[in-house]
């Protein structure tokens, strides 16, 4: 279904993604982990064709999507939805319009210019919002929503594309734990119910473990782990993160604890590390 063959992206001389190869044969929920700068975002952006690859192939259902051009490229983009860490919505537009942007790839330029969407698309958008539990905000501007709600709007936009693959680049990194859980559950449910492939960059191990079927670990642009959640032991995690023996997962956990106290210490930490 999806085959990545020594995919490489170089910025200048530095390889952000370095001969990445793996193979996925059925729709799964896949988590990519790795520390900052490992190349996770770059990989997803290449897959969505927001960035061009330097080398390698990425075959989806047998077709190399990296060589697509013009209308075909846009067709692929509309088949392969992307969800961003910062939601990347149009904040001044209302929620439904943002969701309807998911149809841009298949509608003519002229009608969309004047916001003229077919009625069935509008209905579908509201249905999707309903499915994600935020239909009552349909008329509000996107900027008026909380982070978790905005991310769900972004997911709704992705669903509106009716994509075969959903890419999510650290979808919960700017959310508080409560919202993070809602969003991850939404993604999982979409995978379970619609059978779409979901690839999510995650920066927390326990999230990856809890929600994904398969986890790929990256380090310095290379794949250093590829397996099930069960195989992801603390030792492996240390490898991926290049951490020493004192590594504790707790520091990156999203579970709800005594935030006040933790934050207080975190602040001291931040001050000291400056």
């Amino acid at each position, binding site marked *: 279904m999806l085959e990545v063959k020594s995919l490489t992206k170089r910025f200048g001389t530095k390889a952000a993604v370095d001969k990445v190869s793996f193979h996925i044969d059925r729709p799964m929920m896949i988590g990519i982990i790795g520390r900052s700068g490992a190349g996770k975002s770059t990989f997803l952006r290449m897959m*969505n064709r*927001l960035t061009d690859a330097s080398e390698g192939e990425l075959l989806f259902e047998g077709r190399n999507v990296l060589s697509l051009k013009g209308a075909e*490229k*846009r*067709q*692929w*983009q*509309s*088949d392969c*939805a*992307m969800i*961003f860490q*910062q*939601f*990347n*919505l*149009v*904040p*001044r*537009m209302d929620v439904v319009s943002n969701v309807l*942007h*998911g*149809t*841009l*790839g*298949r509608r003519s*330029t002229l009608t*969309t*210019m004047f916001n003229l969407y077919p009625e069935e698309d509008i209905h579908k958008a509201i249905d999707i919002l309903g499915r994600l539990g935020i239909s009552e905000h349909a008329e509000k501007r996107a900027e008026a929503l909380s982070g978790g709600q905005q991310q769900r709007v*972004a997911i709704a*936009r992705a669903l509106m*594309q009716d994509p075969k693959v959903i890419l999510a680049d650290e979808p919960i990194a700017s959310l508080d734990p409560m919202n993070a859980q809602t969003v991850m559950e939404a993604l999982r449910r979409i995978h379970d119910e619609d059978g779409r492939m979901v690839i999510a960059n995650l920066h927390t191990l326990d999230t990856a473990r809890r929600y994904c079927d398969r986890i790929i670990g990256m380090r310095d642009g290379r794949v250093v782990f590829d397996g099930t959640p069960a195989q992801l032991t603390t030792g492996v995690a240390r490898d991926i993160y290049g951490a020493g023996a004192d590594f504790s997962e707790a520091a990156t956990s999203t579970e709800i604890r005594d935030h006040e106290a933790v934050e207080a210490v975190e602040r001291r930490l931040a001050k000291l590390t400056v």
Partner: protein
Amino acid sequence: MSLAANPSVDMHARAKALIARKRMLAFALPLIVLAYFVYIFFAFDIAGLAGRMRWDNAVTLVSDTYSYKTHVERNNRTGEIKVAVEGERKGTYNATNYPAWVKVGEDAAVITLDDDGTIEIADDMVRYDVPGFGVIEATQSRTGGVTINLDPATLPDWISYSKTRLTVTTKAARLSLTKARSEVFVYEFGWELFWFTLESPYYGHGLSGILFGERIDPERSNLMGAWQDFWNNAIWRHGDTVWALFETVLMAFLGTFGAAIIALPLAFLAARNFAPLVAIRMAARRLFDFLRGVDGLIWTILLSRAFGPGPLTGALAILFTDTGSFGKLFSEALENVDEKQIEGVASTGAKPLQRYRFGVIPQIVPVLLSQVLYFLESNTRSATIIGAITGGGIGLLLTQAMITQKDWEEVSYYIVLVVLLVMAMDSFSGWLRRRLIKGD
């Protein structure tokens, strides 16, 4: 952390130095400005200016803005006596409607002034009874010139006398006598004939008389007739003035929005993150600089050959400069757009135009709108100046009235209108800005 740490002596010295530096700065800036002003004092010759300043001109000007004069003139060759507001043909009284303070007889006129002074014109003689001073009597003859009953050596400074001319200037009136004519200017408070000219049957009728009184002109209803005569007032020309105001706004409107429409696509060419080629971007930027650098007024002159005088030329001149200004401002706004939104739209497979429409336009619309409306207001003011050159709008009327230095009351009328217009545009654009940017 210890509270007992003792500050080193070094810190004392450094703090002192710091404050000393700040003190220097605090004095330096005013001193530089002062030095510059001293230079300007000499460069602009301010000292000489004080000597050249003419307060009497200012007084003439100010008093003329709220008062008007009526000429009573005897042509000493024909003996004909004429009473006219501001000496204008259109303001000439006829025998039936002389104002109450003047009695015109056969070759004679008697004027009663506000301060109880009287002026008498009879034949070749004028007699001015100035309260608290006495009687000034003067005659003119073809051969003997002007003679006066007072001793020419001891005249007060408000009487100017020579063999050919006598001028007496008091608060209430001005009298002059030459061989050619005897003239009295009587000053009165207000803007003369502002509502109706002397020809209008409504002249001298109050508002209530017109609204509720009997029909004055049998041909027309009072309201209708009064409106017509007011609108077509031959001296103040209210109708033309309103038209001129409209033309001014029209120039500003067409120029501003035309420029915005043209500048928007060009701004994409000049924005770093959208320009296809560096060369194109540079070319677009220099074009904007050029359009802006040539002021609107100069564009007016340059365009006058092709389009001739009129509001279109003024609108085009505003359009040219503002295309430059908007181009620069818009391209800066475009360079500040948030890439995330564009990427979000692009990731759905949107076409380039759709990317601009949904990724870029919603972001820059508030900035653009606010700038365009701001310019609309300030262009209304510019349009008055441009109109003065290109021959259109209230600016032409205003500058002409000022340059001819004839009727300062008209000048003040136009100034009031311009100020009201600009203030109205100011609050209108402010209102629109709030509506459009807060809403949608």
